């Protein structure tokens, strides 16, 4: 982390922007437009870059992207896979989590789903140091808070 800090302090950072953009669908319209335009970043360059890099994902999957805007109007961004909650909702086939997690069960997913989700998440820059087992555990924890029950057969 020390070297990362050194790299970051080389150019003064103006802001950190987090966005959810559909893969291959970045356009200068909201949400991208207002969020980036505020810091005078080159919208078109970002859209083109982001779309090119997310071509390998299924179109319109909501990708989480973190943009670091520097004071000289340049920027860098990292794209991460969609949030765990989104994967769980898709796997369980529901639109939103349960309104009373812990009491009302919204839907169920199998351990196989959890394993597949963990494999995708492991490719994320954040989770690379974690073992597959610990990623699975955190996914199960998220599922519990959403009211999705995990069934223990494969």
């Amino acid at each position, binding site marked *: 982390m020390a070297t990362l800090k050194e790299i970051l302090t080389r150019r*003064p*950072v*103006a*802001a*950190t*922007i*987090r*966005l*959810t953009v559909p893969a*291959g669908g970045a*356009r*200068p*319209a*909201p*949400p*991208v*437009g*207002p*969020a*980036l*335009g*505020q*810091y*005078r970043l*080159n*919208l*078109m*360059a970002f*859209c*083109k870059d982001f*779309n*090119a*890099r997310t*071509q390998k994902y299924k*179109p319109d999957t909501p990708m*989480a992207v973190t943009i670091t805007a520097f004071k000289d*109007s340049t920027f860098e961004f990292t794209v991460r896979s969609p*949030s765990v*909650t989104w994967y769980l909702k898709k796997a369980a086939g529901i639109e939103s989590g349960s309104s009373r997690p812990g009491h009302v069960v919204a839907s169920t997913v199998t351990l196989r789903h959890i394993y597949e989700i963990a494999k995708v998440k492991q490719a994320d820059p954040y989770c690379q140091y974690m073992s597959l087992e610990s990623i699975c555990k955190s996914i199960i924890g998220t599922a519990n*808070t959403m009211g999705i029950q995990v069934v223990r057969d494969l």
Partner: protein
Amino acid sequence: MAPLRCLYQLQVLPASFRRPASMRSRSRLTAVHTLSSHMLQGCRLADRFSVLLSKSPATGGRTTGNRGPCSFHPELRKWRPREFCTRAGSPRQVKDDTAVASSPSSPPCLSVSIHCCKRESDALSEALLCFGASSASIDEPSDLEEDEEICITSIFTIDQDVSTCISFAAKSIGLRKTPNFEVTVSEDFDWIANVKETFQPIQVTDGLWVVPEWSTPPDVHARNIFLNPGMAFGTGEHPTTRLCLILLNGLIKGGEAVLDYGTGSGILGIAAVKMGAAFSVGVDIEPQALSSARQNIALNAIEPGRMPLYLAPVKDQTRSDGLKTRIESFDVIIANILLNPLTELAEELVSYGKPGAVVGLSGILHDQVPQVEEKYSKYLESISVSEMNGWACLAGTKR
């Protein structure tokens, strides 16, 4: 009371519940319409407000007529922010093509400023995204301690329940109380104007410049392409556009027929005509891009007949008649799009060219080149690749 041009700015702490009189005394007219949703939730101020606001329709400031909290029904007793917002902002449908640069067709959105501690800001912005925010930005002053308050600016669509989302997000990361926040309905053309300011004249190669509409060309003797990009892609700054322009510069000798697929702002087609091509045809999948291209064609003093524009068919639709008649009639085909459309449209794109036509493809990254090459190798021969900054441009001749 001042005539209602409708814009009050109110800031109320969520914990306390002010009486209407004191609130009115704290309000001031500004050009921005702001409201605090905590205050509005289920409050009996609704009737007070309806009296205040029903005086005149909203015409204030830069908002358009249909953005009217003032057209608020006086009988409404329970006034929830969501209802307020949907009434306040019906999306403006801009059908007028020619006004694309100044009045975008996107609906207004809510910009929320949330105050929280620096150490929680990362987690809170992630949580906000999970619970429905469109974006969350944090300004980064480097001289703040961990405990100090900073402001997260979050954008929501106009019909979202902002307070519920924020309270869920706060609870999910373990904050004990919901942070204070203020909601603003933000104007679209703020950010568009901002973005426009960043365009400068660019020299693509020797004797070829791309100049924004509002500035003077640095070199009057060079070939200058004037642009007003609006919401369409193609300002000449991006490596892919430059690669394509350099390719065209080398190819066009005079009198060719050029097809610009995925024309965006029309820059490649216009450049081809300026370099001496007989005519060029622009195709794009977005109507907004076509109107932007139309503007640029006029800006560069090219007759519309010399660069006709067509709307590309969406999947499963048939091509327009204008395009059907032009199969096998182009000398140069240039397509600066993305990997997926390029691979899907391979056969169609190549079918527009005469045998021996040159096909140029861009919008692909360095590591996507093998895929494109494989797909096009059965249609094109002598494929060459040029690269700039990690982006690549493939060129080949039709068999």
